[in-house]
Structure formats: C-alpha cells, structure tokens
C-alpha cells in the first residue's frame, strides 16, 4: 500500500485516504488548437515505466489537490509538492536524478 504525505496539511496516510487524479502537468488545449493537440491533451499520457508525476487529492483529509512523484515499478514515492505549480520543484528533480541516474528528466 502506498504511503503519501499531503504537502498542504502535512498529514501522512495510506493511499485509501487519498484519491488518485491521473498524470500531472498536462498542457491544456482548447478552442483554437489543432486536432492533434486536442487529442493529445484528452487521451495521450506518458504512461512511463519508471518516474511518474501525478495528481492526488487528500480526499479524506484536508481535501486539497497536490502533486506526487512516484516510481511505477518500485512504487517508491520520491516526494509530494503543492498543486499550484506547472513543473516539479528543482530539488525534487535533483533527488530523483540522484536515485535514478538513467532517468531522462522531466
């Protein structure tokens, strides 16, 4: 079972306390975009075998959305950070790079 820490209220809990929200940092395309861009936004996901950035909600807690970086093979959680950013914080990227030298980067 995954253990996550909410970066807003600081509470750690089992994954049952949280609700998964899919891939993080999607670039949104709406009216005026090309068919390809809109299709990519709606349906295409990175689905990596390795480091994955994703959204979670502290559903049975403070209720806030946040981000997590997790390995989809070992289930190791590298860290969590608030939802109001468009890319992961530099120190988290460094932490992941130290643990996964072969990782291609965000």
């Amino acid at each position, binding site marked *: *079972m995954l253990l996550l820490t909410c970066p807003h209220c600081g509470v750690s809990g089992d994954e049952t306390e949280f609700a998964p929200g899919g891939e993080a940092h999607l670039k949104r395309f709406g009216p005026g975009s090309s068919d390809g861009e809109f*299709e990519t936004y709606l*349906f*295409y996901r990175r*689905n*990596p075998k390795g480091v994955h950035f994703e959204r979670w909600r502290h559903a049975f807690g403070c209720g806030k959305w946040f981000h997590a970086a997790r390995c989809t*093979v070992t289930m190791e959680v590298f860290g969590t950070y608030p939802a109001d950013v468009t890319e992961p914080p530099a120190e988290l990227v460094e932490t992941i790079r130290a643990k996964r030298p072969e990782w291609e980067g965000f």
Partner: protein
Amino acid sequence: MKRYSAFAIAKEALGYHVGWERAWGNPEPKPEYEVVIVGAGGHGLATAYYLAKNHGITNVVVLEKGWLGGGNTGRNTTIIRSNYLQDPSAEIFELSRRLYEDLSQKLNFNIMFSPRGVLMLAQTEHELRAWERTAHANRLFGIESEMVTPERIKRIVPIINIEGPRYPVLGGLWQARGGTARHDAVAWGYARAASDLGVDIIQQCEVTGIDRDEHGVTGVRTSRGAIRCKKLCIVVAGHSGVLADMAGFRLPVESVPLQALVSEPIKPCIDCVVMANTVHGYMSQSDKGELVIGGGADGYNAYTQRGSFQHVEETVRALTETFPMISRLRMLRQWGGIVDMTGDRSPIISKTPVPGIFINCGWGTGGFKAIPGSGWAMAGLVAKGEDPVAGPFSLDRFTEGRMIDESVAAAVAH
C-alpha cells in the same frame, strides 16, 4: 505434429508414454522474417496462427521476453462473453465467442471451453435499464442474450442472496452461451498449432529496440541478436507504451494493475459465472473447485503486477454480501496483471504512424474473451492492410472522435 486423441493416449500408455513429442518447437532466431510479433500471449499467438492459417503467411516469429502465456493470458479470470452494447464490440467479441466454440477441435488441443452461462447482475434501477438496453442491442445484432428476473436468477445460482441488504438483485443479463475456458491451454493450443504451421516461437527473448528508416520498420534488436523484418506487430498489453516509445510514437493507453484471487477448493456450488458490477466483484468456480474471483483495478499507473491491498478487501466484501456461504472460505492465491486502458475502454487494433508497424493493445480488463477474434482481425489487418472487424478499432478514432464507448456501457471494467 502427432495428433492428440483418445487413441493416441491408449497407444502411448502401452509404450510407457515415451513417444510424446514437444508441443511446439524451440528454434534459434533466424536473421530475417516477414512478420515479427512481439508478445507470446494469447493475442500474439492467435495472430501468428491466423496469419498462417487464413492468409498462408508462415515466415513469422513470435518473440516473448518471459515464458509463453505468462502475462495477462495466465492471470485473468477466464470469462468469455459477447453481450456488448456497441456494434463494433459486439462484432469482435461475438466472432471470438463463436471461434471459442470449436477451438479445441480446430487446434486439436483441449482448451476446456465451458459454455456454462454468464450472469451480469442488475442491482440498481440504472443498471437494470442499462442491461435492458444491452439486451435489445444484442437481439438486434443477433447475439443470444436475455434479461432474467430475480426468481430465475435464484434458480440459476441457488447460493446467491437476492435480497440485499445494500443492493438487492433486481434482475440480470444472462448469456447462456458465455462461459469460461482454460486460459493457459488457449495459449498452448495456439502455440502448438502455429508452430505446426511453420511459425517460430522464441521465448526468453526480450525486444530492446526497434529499427526504422524513412520508409518504415526494418527490424528489432533483441536480447538474442538483431532480427530484420518487413512487418512488426506489437501485442504486449501492459507494456505497449514501452514498445511504442522504442518505435517513436505514443499511445492513448495507461497501464494499471488488475487483481484476481482464488479460494481453497470446495465442492461444486456455482455452475455459471456471476458478475456483480455495482458492488464490484465477479466469481466462477474452476474445475478444481476453487472459486475464481476478480475485482477492481488500481486507480493509478503502475507496472508492479501486484496491485493494492484494499482492492482485495473490497472485492471479497462485495462477494460475501452477494454469496453469504463463502464468508468463511480461505483465499489461496492472489496476483495481479498489468492491463492497458484506453480512454473509451475499447481496444486498439491498428496501423501506427510508423509504416509496417501494427499494434494490438488496449484490451484493458477484458482481453481473454477476445483472443480468437482479436487474432483473426489482427491477422487480416497485417496480411491485407485492412480488416472489416479491426477497422473501427483504429488508432485515429481518438483524433476523429469516433469512440467505441464501452466505459459508459459497462460503467466499470469489463
């Protein structure tokens, strides 16, 4: 290939069983093939078999990084049904179910197809209406399926609790010619028959890269050397995204773990498959007497082949409510498989942006039942460049908004 028969068993019994030959060959990879199929699961092996059988293309190799049928083919709950809502789904799943009927005879391998009936419970008014709609759609399409009353359900499955308390059974969708088959035997049967037709099957050979030039695919690099090819089929379920990445394109799939478990063996108590989608669990009994139980997929991406603990509890809780007599059974084994989910919960059988590369993926949580039809359609697509059954499942349906929306039809995994 020596044929399997009662006579062959009697003859071998007299000769101390030393005359049985290998079921399928174990060749060294050749430097070049016309078609390379990555993934020796049911879908890959069925594709190879129908390429050889229906289209006469036998210069084919099936590459498998692990062992044959060791992925989702050997991890599912073996349910076969075709009562789908959308026409393209109904067509491919019914083709599949029909092919299953005499597959043992066609392959000369007992796949233990058991058309014991599949019952899908309706436990809310919404579900009741949805199944009624599906039953009408099935009737229009010519698929045998019907709505049954709670009283009839109790006669079909005496161990069921139709009175709730949370979700009383209001009715059900019954497909009498649905059922189960031995999943390993489906892979083994296709492997043996394909091998007999001249297809090479190479296990423990992992694809590490895909070579292409400006005209399309030229070959694959593997842990046992490079293999050139004219056409490449990627049939690897949960790892489709990894292979697509090697080939340089992306797929609209996400990989999540789906779990199943079996109980200790008990005497026969349920002679059909019951699916309870509202409480989310499904159950049948194997010939060994184990109750085969399936449940929910994880809500987030992973490649772990194990899944989250709470899903085991949720599934078992749902089923003890539906079948109170199983509440004291102990569970013997639990496992997970990585399923590849598309946005509309329908599969992809398609050409790809790279000429010469074909993809068969996105079967999500319901691929086993589709193995024969999927292989049939994929073989047609690879051999002739188009196939009437595969057509609607092309990759460009996501660009065109031409969804085959089974996620709405089934409301859950199917």
